[in-house]
C-alpha cells in the first residue's frame, strides 16, 4: 500500500485531499453588499475601523455590527459605510506620497535644542 502523507496545517487541508461532491449551492441572485464598520469604543475617542460585514441596507449593517462587534461593551457608537464608497491610496504610490515628509525633521519638536532652564515648552 502506498500512502503518501503530506503535511497540512490546522484549517489548511489541500484541495486534492478533499472529496468534492457535485453538490452546488444555488447562487444567490441578490447578494447583500459589503459594509465597513467603525466603532467608537468610548465617548471622547475616534471611531476606529474594526472590520466588515454583509447587510441588505445601512440599518441592518448597524444592527449586525452591534451583534458582531459590541457583544462585550466594546462600543458606544457605530458608523457603517458601504465598502464600494471607500477610496484607498495605492501602495505603489507610497513613495511619492509619503517620502517628502521624511527629510523634514524640523517639523518635530525634538529638532530644537533649548536650554534646560526653559520649562513648559
Amino acid at each position: 500500500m502506498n500512502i503518501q502523507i503530506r503535511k497540512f496545517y490546522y484549517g489548511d487541508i489541500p484541495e486534492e485531499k478533499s472529496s468534492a461532491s457535485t453538490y452546488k449551492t444555488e447562487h444567490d441572485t441578490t447578494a447583500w453588499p459589503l459594509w465597513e464598520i467603525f466603532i467608537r469604543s468610548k465617548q471622547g475617542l475616534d471611531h476606529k475601523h474594526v472590520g466588515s460585514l454583509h447587510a441588505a441596507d445601512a440599518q441592518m449593517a448597524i444592527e449586525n455590527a452591534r451583534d458582531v462587534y459590541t457583544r462585550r461593551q466594546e462600543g458606544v457608537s457605530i458608523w457603517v459605510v458601504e465598502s464600494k464608497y471607500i477610496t484607498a491610496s495605492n501602495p505603489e504610490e507610497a513613495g511619492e506620497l509619503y517620502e517628502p515628509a521624511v527629510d523634514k525633521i524640523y517639523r518635530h519638536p525634538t529638532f530644537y535644542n533649548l536650554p534646560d532652564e526653559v520649562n513648559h515648552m
Partner: protein
Amino acid sequence: MSVQDLEKIFQDAIDSEIKIEPKNWMPDAYRKTNIRQISQHAHSEIVGMLPEGNWISRAPSLKRKAILIAKVQDEAGHGLYLYSAAETLGTSRDEMINDLHSGKAKYSSIFNYPTLTWADMGAVGWLVDGAAILNQVMLCRTSYGPYARAMVRICKEESFHQRQGFESLLVLSQGTEEQKAMCQDAINRWWWPSLMMFGPKDSESTNSDQSMKWKIKRKTNDELRQQFVDMIAEQIKLLGMQLPDDKLKWNEQRKHNDFGEINWAEFWAVVKGNGPCNKQRLEARRKAHEEGKWVREAAMAYADKKANQKKQEAA
C-alpha cells in the same frame, strides 16, 4: 517591475515583519494559500457551532445555557471575521460557502465527532478550544494583516471558551460517581481527536515548508502538539481525571511529556469524509443555507423598496 523584483520586495517585507495588506502585491500562491487556510478556518468556526448547538436546549441549568449560547454566538462572529478577511483577497462569500457545501473546502475534522453527553460541552471547551487557541495565538502574528487582526479579536474572545469548559468539568469532577464517570468518559473520547487537530507529524511532510517561509504559520504541528500535551497533562491533575494514554509520561531529558502514537488511519478517514458525523454536519449547513434563502432575498427586496421610496420623496 519584474516578478522577481516584486517577489523580493514581498519576501523582504515578510522577513522584516512588515504585514502584507490587501492592496500590496503578493505571489499568487500566497494569495491562494491564504484564501484556502482562512476560509477553512472560517468554515471550522461555523460548523463548530453544530456539535454545541446540540446541547443548548438540554443544558442542565439556565446559567450553563446562557454561557453556551454566548459561546456559540461567538463562534458565529469568529466565522464572520474570518470570511471577511478571506474576502479581502478577492474571493466572495458565495464562492466560499459553495466550496464548503460541495465538500471542496474542508473544516477542522474535530467537528465530525458527536457530542454524546453534557460533559462533552466541557471537554470540547477545555480540549478542543484549548488546542485551537494554541494555533490561534500563533496566528495573531501571521503575515497577512487582515488575518492577523481577525485572530487578535478571536483570541480575546476565545479564552472564555476554554475557561468555561474547564470549570464545567471541574464541577462534574467534584460531583456524584455518575457525574465523575461522565467527565472521564468525555475526556477519553475527546483526547485523541484533539491531538489530531494539529495535523500530521512534521517528519511525514513531503512538502517544502512554504507556509513557514511566508510566515503564514510560525510553529510546526509537532511543536504545537507538544505544547498542548504539556499544558493539558498538568491541568488534568486538578480535575483528578486520567488522560487515556498509558505512554503519557514526563521525560526529564526532553523536559516534555512523551505520549503515545495517534491513530493516523482514523485521522485520514475523517478528513476524507468518513468520520462519524461528516454527512450530518454538511447536510445541516446546506439545509440552513437553503432554508434561509428567502430571508436573504426578502431583506434585499425590502432594502431596495425603501431606497426607492427615499428617491421618490427626494424628487
